[in-house]
């Protein structure tokens, strides 16, 4: 899929009603989901989020993921998240924001606001469909494989850990491979990985709709472990679903592309940090203000629990 223009955003924005000020981010790996509609009479722009189709026909992942599953999972569950999000956002301060920005704002340091679930699930599912492809699986190569071997010891160890995370996420949720870089003080949430893991690949799992954007990580790969993702094809056998996903469905090309973008963004940030440090040393005023309104939220991240199938 060809990437269209990425989001252009100003440096900071304020949501007065929520009292939050956050730096915006352009998220290059996502295609824009906004369609700007201008209402002729009032000259007001409203934004609606669209349900994007997976980058393959609904039966293309058979026999590993059935057409029926895609029809319900994408056609009903995903669609409902998008429709309900649009209803929740219209006429509010959230209207016009990018999906990623809505996610960060409504995560609200763990004290989740109503639109979070729909916004995050809309994003998560787009990311999930794009993480798979017909004839997927196998092994990555190049930089991605090097990093995996560096950070997990071997590709096999990585697979083991990823499968374990996916199998032990109690209840509904997601397992992720993500690139963690730079920002160790995550303003919005408690960073699940300690500082030694900076600029590394990490595996994290999250409950319900939560995703690594709230920790300022760069997601690379995800697997949906809500029961609706696998129940029609695998019933209670979540481990089988996870194995099939890894062996037959993962699109390593997509993961690779995302990794390149993650590294580019990390490099950009480093340059920005450098610039700001220099400016401070030279006594020039800076534009950025620290938001030290840190609320401590405990992110549930139990690694050893067994998952009931």
């Amino acid at each position, binding site marked *: 899929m060809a990437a269209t223009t990425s989001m252009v955003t100003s440096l900071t924005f304020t949501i007065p009603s929520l009292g939050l000020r956050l730096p915006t981010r352009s998220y290059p790996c996502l295609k824009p989901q906004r369609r700007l509609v201008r209402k002729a009479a009032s000259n007001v722009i409203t934004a609606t989020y669209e349900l994007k189709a997976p980058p393959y026909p609904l039966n293309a992942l058979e026999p590993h993921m059935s057409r029926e599953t895609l029809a319900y999972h994408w056609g009903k569950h995903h669609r409902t998240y998008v429709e309900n999000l649009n209803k929740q956002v219209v006429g509010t301060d959230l209207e016009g924001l990018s999906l990623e920005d809505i996610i960060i704002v409504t995560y609200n340091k763990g004290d989740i606001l109503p639109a979070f679930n729909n916004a995050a699930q809309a994003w998560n599912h787009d990311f999930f469909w794009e993480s798979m492809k017909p004839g997927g699986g196998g092994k990555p190569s190049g930089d991605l494989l090097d990093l995996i071997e560096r950070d997990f010891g071997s590709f096999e160890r990585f697979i083991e850990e990823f499968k374990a995370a996916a199998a032990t996420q109690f*209840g509904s949720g997601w397992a992720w491979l993500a690139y963690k870089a730079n920002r160790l003080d995550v303003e919005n949430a408690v960073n699940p990985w300690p500082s030694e893991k900076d600029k590394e690949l990490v595996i994290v799992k999250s409950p319900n709709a939560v995703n690594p954007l709230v920790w300022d990580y760069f997601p690379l790969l995800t697997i949906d472990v809500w029961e609706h993702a696998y129940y029609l094809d695998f019933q209670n056998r979540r481990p089988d679903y996870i194995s099939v996903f890894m062996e037959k469905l993962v699109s390593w090309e997509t993961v690779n592309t995302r990794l390149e973008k993650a590294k580019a963004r990390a490099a950009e940030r480093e340059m920005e940090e450098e610039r700001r440090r220099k400016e401070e040393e030279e006594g020039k005023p800076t534009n950025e203000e620290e938001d030290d309104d840190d609320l401590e939220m405990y992110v549930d991240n139990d690694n050893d629990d067994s998952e009931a199938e």
Partner: protein
Amino acid sequence: MALRSSVTRRTLTLGLNSTRLLPLSRSLQTFSLPDLPYDYGALEPAISGEIMQLHHQKHHQTYITNYNKALEQLHEAIQKGDSSTVVKLQSAIKFNGGGHVNHSIFWKNLAPIREGGGEPPKASLGWAIDTHFGSLESLIQKMNTEGAALQGSGWWLGVNKELKKLVIETTPNQDPLVTKGPHLVPLLGIDVWEHAYYLQYKNVRPDYLKNIWKVINWKYASEVYEKECA
């Protein structure tokens, strides 16, 4: 079909010859899958036999298996004085033990129509429902709204007694009702994990919630209520 006891005793001995000294044995209670008091297909068409079988034989059984495993590990850790393992095991115990507790109650909350499933509650519970919620219909409506809104997986143990008051509560994942308050006693729970309805109702949870009332066993809920409020 009578309910088989859900508890069996198994004794672990630590290798000492029992004829010599007092055996240094500790007994570890393990749990087993309780029988359903009805056939898998007996709740149709409200809940399909396929779902009941999977739900009972696979999901509930897995909670029990993992619960037993966690308890054994806990037992060892306690004996070794390994506190960090003891603490680490807590979430596995809450999850799997909670799953066992919740599902054991759930099977009793259901009954085939010909055995009274769906019959409205009478006597003290019926009266308490009318007093606190106005009517049974209004209780059902409130519970269905909460159940439909629950994000992700979760138990929706409704109608509890706390200081002699009925309450509706939802709990996430497999958290048992007591995690919402030590004085809460579950009367009626409705499993809203997707595995409880997906094969039949797919994403339409509200339909599942509407139909399950046809097989709710109010007799059991009344018994528990009367015992607690006597």
